[in-house]
């Protein structure tokens, strides 16, 4: 294991401690008890795996547990792809970033957009005028710089809902929830003040209006730009948006929804000879809507061979490295039902290493539709220069963690 970059914030950890990390990790892996927090003596490692590279944080004292996620995020935004090469290529910037992100173990600024303003990759070309600290770093509004200018003032709002479903082998829905997120792409001049109106049930109850459908959000999380106390008191979502792309809020809805794509499967395994799979997929959503890029992933035993498929629509493919059959349907209209049959041979010698029972997973995307019925009622944009700005809204529903257990 090579250390790509290291920064010792407090100077109380011996950098050779990192050598213990990999051994400990391997040991845990062997025991089948991996855990993202490992301790060795008085040193504690926290790690996350990001495409084969480990990011470690070492601590000797009690520290915030959430620190190590953020560098990764920031680096990703800086370099697009975070790999060994990209770190080496930019190690100077990485050090500068690490310096700004944290000081003496205290996280400071983790907003990559603001960081980009004063830590640039072309450090040597900095002119004196530009090396001022952006006031934003220490401002109350730490996420938006002043003096932005756009010819055309627009804001794009994406409402994306992901459905997480867990269905039991006997077809009963064990858990289902919707995780929604509202993303903004802001191209607005100056320091605009925005207000977003949703058909939020609590808000409507507060104001006494109850026209039309409302949505009860179980839990809402906001970008730091949203005034939380204001939301707490009168459910108004008001904020000064960060420039460019950002996730304004996310919410979770517990209401039970019918799984949008219902799968029935029969997997029959005849030991030493063959496996027969029958999968029926049914679109349980409005006829006007169409699900795009539907992928039904059906697990097969790892030693299966000679695949044969028959599908009523779409295309089935065997992916042996993942032990899966992937059934792809480019467009899947609501209310329709499709069928796929697969047949595999099994070797006469049985692989007797126990295999798990992976569930069937489904991926899909349904545009112009939110399963919860959430709507953006209005987006008010007020800026002191008084320009007119256009909000654009897009809705999309997609699959999240969508699992159906099988009986095989």
């Amino acid at each position, binding site marked *: 294991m090579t250390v*790509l970059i290291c920064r010792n914030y407090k100077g109380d950890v011996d950098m050779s401690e990192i050598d213990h990390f990999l051994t400990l990790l391997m*040991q845990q892996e062997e*025991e*089948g*008890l*991996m*855990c*993202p*927090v490992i*301790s060795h003596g*008085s040193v*504690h490692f926290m790690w996350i795996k990001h495409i084969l590279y480990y990011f470690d944080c070492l601590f*000797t*004292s*009690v*520290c*915030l*547990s*959430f620190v190590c996620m953020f560098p990764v995020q920031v680096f990703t935004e800086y370099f697009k792809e975070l790999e*060994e090469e990209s770190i*080496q*290529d930019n*190690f*100077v910037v990485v*050090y*500068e970033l690490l310096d700004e992100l944290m*000081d*003496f173990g*205290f996280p*400071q*600024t983790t*907003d990559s957009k603001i960081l980009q303003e004063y830590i640039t990759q072309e*450090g*040597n070309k900095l002119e*004196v005028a530009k*090396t*001022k*600290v952006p006031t934003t770093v*220490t401002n*109350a509004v730490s996420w938006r710089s002043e003096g932005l200018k756009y010819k055309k003032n627009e804001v794009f709002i994406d409402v994306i809902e992901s459905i*997480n479903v867990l269905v*039991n082998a006997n077809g009963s829905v*064990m*858990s289902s*929830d919707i995780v929604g997120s509202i993303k903004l792409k802001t191209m607005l001049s100056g320091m605009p003040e925005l207000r977003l109106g949703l058909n939020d049930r609590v808000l409507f109850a507060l104001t006494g209006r109850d026209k039309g459908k409302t949505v009860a959000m*179980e*839990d809402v*999380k906001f970008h*730091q730009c949203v*005034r*939380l*106390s204001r939301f*707490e008191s009168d459910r108004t979502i008001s904020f000064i948006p960060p420039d460019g792309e950002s*996730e304004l809020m*996310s919410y*979770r809805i517990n209401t039970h929804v019918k799984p949008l794509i219902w799968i029935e499967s029969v997997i029959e395994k005849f030991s030493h000879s063959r496996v027969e799979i029958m999968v029926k997929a049914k679109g349980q959503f409005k006829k006007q809507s169409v699900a795009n890029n539907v992928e039904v992933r059906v697990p097969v035993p790892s030693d299966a061979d000679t695949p044969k498929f028959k599908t009523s629509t779409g295309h089935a493919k065997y992916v042996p490295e993942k032990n899966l059959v992937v059934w792809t349907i480019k467009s899947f209209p609501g209310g329709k039902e499709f069928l796929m049959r697969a047949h595999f041979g099994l070797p006469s*010698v049985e692989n007797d290493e126990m295999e798990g*029972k992976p569930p069937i997973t489904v991926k899909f995307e349904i545009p112009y539709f939110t399963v919860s019925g959430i709507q953006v009622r209005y987006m008010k944009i007020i800026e002191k220069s008084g320009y007119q700005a256009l909000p654009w809204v897009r809705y999309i529903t997609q699959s999240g963690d969508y*699992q159906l*257990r099988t009986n095989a």
Partner: protein
Amino acid sequence: MTDSKYFTTTKKGEIFELKAELNSDKKEKKKEAVKKVIASMTVGKDVSALFPDVVNCMQTDNLELKKLVYLYLMNYAKSQPDMAIMAVNTFVKDCEDPNPLIRALAVRTMGCIRVDKITEYLCEPLRKCLKDEDPYVRKTAAVCVAKLHDINAQLVEDQGFLDTLKDLISDSNPMVVANAVAALSEIAESHPNSNLLDLNPQTINKLLTALNECTEWGQIFILDCLANYTPRDDRESQSICERVTPRLSHANSAVVLSAVKVLMKFMEMLPKDLDYYGTLLKKLAPPLVTLLSAEPELQYVALRNINLIVQKRPEILKHEMKVFFVKYNDPIYVKLEKLDIMIRLASQANIAQVLAELKEYATEVDVDFVRKAVRAIGRCAIKVEQSAERCVSTLLDLIQTKVNYVVQEAIVVIKDIFRKYPNKYESVIATLCENLDSLDEPEARAAMIWIVGEYAERIDNADELLESFLEGFHDESTQVQLQLLTAIVKLFLKKPTETQELVQQVLSLATQDSDNPDLRDRGYIYWRLLSTDPVAAKEVVLAEKPLISEETDLIEPTLLDELICHIGTLASVYHKPPSAFVEGGRGVQHKRLPARAGSGESAESPDVGQAVSAVSDAPPAVIPSQGDLLGDLLNLDLAPPTSNVPPVPSSMQMGAMDLLGGGLDSLMGDESETSASHYRTEVQSPQPPECSERELGGDVGGSPAMGVSLGGAPVGMPAGLGAAPAVGGGLGDLFDLGGGVGVTAGSYIPPKTVWLPAMKAKGLEISGTFARRSGVIHMDLSFTNKAMSVMTDFAIQFNKNSFGLAPAGPLQVLTPLSPNQTVDVSLPLSTTGPVMKMEPLNNLQVAVKNNIDVFYFSCQYPISLLFVEDGKMDRQVFLATWKDIPSENEAQFQIKDCHLNSDAASNKLQGSNIFTVAKRTVDTQDMLYQSVKLTNGIWMLAELRIQTGNPNSTEWLDSRCRGVRNASAYILVYDICCVESFEYVKMIRQQIVDNREGSSSEVPILVVGSKRDLQRHRFTQRRAISVLVKKTWKCGYVECSAKYNWHVLLLFKELLGIAVARGLRQNHASIRLQGALQRNRCSVM
């Protein structure tokens, strides 16, 4: 053009080149060079030699370059404190730079340079920066105070920085406030009683206002600080809660957890019938659930915290069972944690769902997870009475699967169910008995035996069943043995007629053939009970058992309360108080939940809840080593324990020493006793230095003389060089030193003996001894004047001797020695005097002169006096030398009745500069390989075998198998169906390791189990072997089948992988890096 090129230069003389480049006139070239230096530093090369050159680059207006130089300074200033002073001027200048970025950078870097001399220069600039007009500088300076405090706390207090920092809490900029709070909290941790963070309603109000405005991380500092505050009453507590709850909607999960912590803590003060209390409970659930939609690592942290919250206030999440259902693709650590929470939340309302899930999990493949799931079913049965029947039938279904570990786990939990609900489910016993043969884990066997014994009257063949276990009684683990003993006694009490023989058998096994005291004692108790009063025995043994509790693994309440105060920190992840894993004084404070309003304590709550007990100045050394509970107890104790480690009674220590020393000494010449340890000493003189060559000429081959001095018992020694009584005790003496284990204070000093009696020297008596103190040989002499007149003008001279000992200075007897006066003199000796071989070797002839006459005497010094401190030989050199020692230079001795284990012996010997180079364990023998260097450069190598078992085997393994030594990788193949083949592999592997001593970890060994296709007939579980091979042996492990060509390729791929990786490790760091870069391109077959 990218920067990765800097990582690839591997040329020699690089440092020199860099030096030149750093001093170049061209700015670009300079910058390139600094980049290269930093790159080298990153990969771990030592570039500290370039310090002055890099510091020279500091004065630049290029910000990027400046940052790099600062980075370098932070890394190396500590190792070059004097040079670091050179940088001070630039720092001070930079702190006044018009550019705030540079000002902040300078103040930040200065704080990171942990050199005492620099800190004093830091004060002035820091003071300025704390009042800087730019908030960015102020916020950086605030942190710098904490840094400075870490280096020199006194200085910070003297300079009044703490007050400035307190003022910053009222700063107009929220970011500055946040950093000031963070810095103060950090400082307060090491000053628990200083009341630094003077938390009162006014400051709290300020903090709450800043909370709304500062960045996410700032919010965390403030929330953590709020958590330390104790509100005066429930009203204040509620108002703080109200202002903190909006934070639960923050996107940053750390903010959410910190807010949860504050709320959990302050809730304690709210009366439960308050409406707001209910509202708060409802508000807490959704954000906690949402944390579970994050990345798995975050989920894990969230789950560990939720686990605490669920134990403290189960009502918060009682309706949220579903979110804890395990998904197939969850990582194992998330799965186990979810399962744990599921059991805690199980109630009558959701038990059906939970059971269905648990049954599903029990059919998965991950062994640990499956076991826990099965166990969970049992816990549900015990927790929710209504579900017990369903649980039992689920467990029976699982037993039918015949999966070995599932069956065993099920039996263990069924035992608990029987305990909880006696006489209810005994109908299932028949099914359990069917699986008797498949139980191989002690816990399951013990559980089954318990069941058979407890329900003996219902099982017709109970005696047969128990008898079958009895056959292998001595091979069972203690747990099973104890259980078997009890079960058979129970059986006897229930069916006395048929089982008399059985009970006698087990009692005799337990009392006579076992050396386990627990087992023996229990056996005797039963025996006496049964023989004196069978009725009483019945009452005792078959007494009604107390019910087992519902929750067995709850965290102890006071600990739980403390952990609640640490939500969002490592403590909450480990479920241990910080004192259990943080070294040093900080973080060891003990936090407590505030007292509930209305309780007697609330009046004095500020004191109680200030959460800083007086204990924090208790020695950290004591606390961290304790477990959670113990640490807790210690912390609660208001009187701090004494700062010393509890002293071992010294008499005991002395006793042990005497015993050891005496024993050894007396045994040196006595060979009639059974030997306990064997010594083999090989002596060699590879390159005797010039002068001694002639003198010691006879000894080059026959250095046994030295051997003699080491051993004293001449075994196969040429006669004539024989035993020298004075040194005879050499080895024994060495073992005598030091006293307790681990004390390596110094070498052995024999007591003073009279060298020159007064009769022979006209009233001058000289006694003395030799000692080696901090690398210098001393002759400690006592002069006593037993004559009637004053003695003056002392001088000393040595005759030529074997090791060239000579006085290093004149004899210092300053005052005239009056009659009956004694003076002690310590004379340092050098080894540079003239050399002549003496008989015996360690004889020293001395002449002492005074105003009366010249006197001659001779004395003998212990050979260990000449062992030098740098006598530790490199392992590789040792190995090579060891093999080249001609056998005539070897000598063997036995030391008997030395009851030291290898570590103690090694420690002891180290005190006399006999160094252990390597240690290995073969069967029952510990072998220590040791090296000794004499003052004249002669090395002695020794192999010390410490035998604990069979005392008489002195056989020499002729295991120098040279053939095995040269391979660069090994594949050891065994047959997975054949134990013997594995034993053989074990043996071979041991030989390889032995013969490659020192480099064993570098030799790739891959153990391969063949005949994978005959998997069903394997002699033991794959896991057992693979754990042994991978963990204990640190070798690779692969199983394959040649018949089906299964994993054969993988095997070679694996081997190459290891070999390549090992090969690279030895190379230069940057080559290693190159290798790593090419990893993606490298593919094998």
